[in-house]
């Protein structure tokens, strides 16, 4: 397993956002975490990176226990976050955003190559290198955030609500890019989403959270066909 989360509990003060959730992700897998607003999806993702207060549980990544490392060290271990609402560095240029994504790799020739490859993948970023990231549209910022996360060639991509605030057509494009990265490059992706239909379409497996606990874990196709779950989570 690339990532193993066991009994993860996240609490903000007295408020428990996640109670004892376990999750596993094999190399090359695209796994979705679904659930309504406030179900604990983002807390799970941020808990894996250590960006929210974790009260219990274990996190193993590439066989090592990373549960006690600060967030940036977890990122260095080979996971990268695509934050909710992109969170690009607004006053830095597109090129500087991508350069920041290379953090820790130094003057590595492969990183340059990687940037070129990413510009092929995200053609909207081409020719915008010296433009401040704040001047990009929402969809473009989301693509920049994904590209920024991918410059370092991570083993695992953690994607938080990538479709939020995007118009459906743009959201579809972003999902398509993620699916392609997963299929063609074997990139492992943990996708936290509210848009269940779109994310299930590209996932192999899925977890469903409800008020901080896991209520379903299984293959994406089974979830798509389960009438009870369909009614509850897919709005069908």
């Amino acid at each position, binding site marked *: 397993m690339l990532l193993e989360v066991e009994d993860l509990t996240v609490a903000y003060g007295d408020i428990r956002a996640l109670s004892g959730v376990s999750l596993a992700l094999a190399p090359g897998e695209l796994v979705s975490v679904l659930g309504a607003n406030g179900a604990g999806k983002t807390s799970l993702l941020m808990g894996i990176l250590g960006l929210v207060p974790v009260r219990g549980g274990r996190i193993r990544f590439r066989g090592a226990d990373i549960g006690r490392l600060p967030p940036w060290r977890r990122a260095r271990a080979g996971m990268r976050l695509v934050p909710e609402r992109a969170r690009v560095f607004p006053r830095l240029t597109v090129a500087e955003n991508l350069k920041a994504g290379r953090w820790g790799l130094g003057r590595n020739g492969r990183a340059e190559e990687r940037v070129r490859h990413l510009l092929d993948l995200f053609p909207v970023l081409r020719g915008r290198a010296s433009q401040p990231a704040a001047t990009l549209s929402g969809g473009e910022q989301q693509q920049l955030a994904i590209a920024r996360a991918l410059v*370092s060639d991570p083993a695992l991509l953690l994607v938080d609500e990538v479709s939020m605030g995007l118009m459906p057509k743009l959201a579809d494009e972003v999902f398509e890019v993620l699916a392609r990265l997963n299929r063609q490059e074997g990139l492992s992706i943990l996708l936290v989403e509210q848009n269940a239909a779109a994310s299930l379409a590209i996932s192999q497996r899925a977890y469903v959270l409800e008020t901080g606990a896991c209520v379903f874990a299984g293959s994406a196709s089974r979830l798509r066909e389960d009438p009870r779950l369909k009614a509850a989570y897919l709005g069908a």
Partner: protein
Amino acid sequence: MGGYLVTLATLISIQAIAACGLNVIVGYAGQISLGHAAFFGIGAYAAALLGTQAGFSFWTALPLAVALTAGVGLLLGAPSLRVREDFLAITTIGINFIVEAVFNNVEFFGGALGIGNIPRIRAFGGPVGGAGMLALCLGFLGLVVAACAGLVRCWAGLACFALREEETAAAGIGISPVRFKLLAFVIGSAMAGLGGALYAHYMRFIGAGDFAFPLSVSMLTMVVVGGIGTLWGPVLGAALIGLLPEVFRPLIDYRMLFYTTLLLLMIRFQPGGLLGDEGLARRLLRKAIPGGRR
């Protein structure tokens, strides 16, 4: 240039050195500090004590004073930078008051009498006088601006900017927030220490009141007016804040009111500062040099 102008220009360049340091902390790393005068004071007291008690020359005392200020910056920065925004502002104000109180009350630091008889800087076998001192301060200011320009271009600078813009995203791509906030704090403190050391040897008498909270406010005003996060903004700000009270001499009693009003007006109408992206000075420069820097 008359003696008065030389004095004014010397004081402005000394303050500009400290303001550049504050800009590294506030403008580059995005960490508010309202206690920069404390570090200016630590540099000044260190240089003064080394010059009077230990009998060190300015040139020996300078690196020690700068290193000491940077060290204190590291020591005080480590706990302070755990809090953010308004709490950080209050913490840094607290640092300023504590440092001033220590200078004012501890016998070792001269107490309420301050420290006098600080020797003149000597170079080329003689004491450095008015114009020489101005040249020296301008030289150090040049070094500080060059250091800032270097910082902006290197990886550490990029890390500071990333933190300023989006701390969570920065941590999510492997940048340590603690490390680079501290780095900015230490570099900023070191520059304040350099300015302080020059100040002590220039004034030749210092007291705790020279490094009180109002100086921190006026340093922050320099950075905000000139252009927060820009390279030359703090220098322009120091020049303006240094000159205006001289021009409006009769209003000297109201200068805190003036700084505060200026700060509020800047925030309302020129949030990026005069040299900021949409700033007045930047627009004029663009008009004067078409096709120049963006």
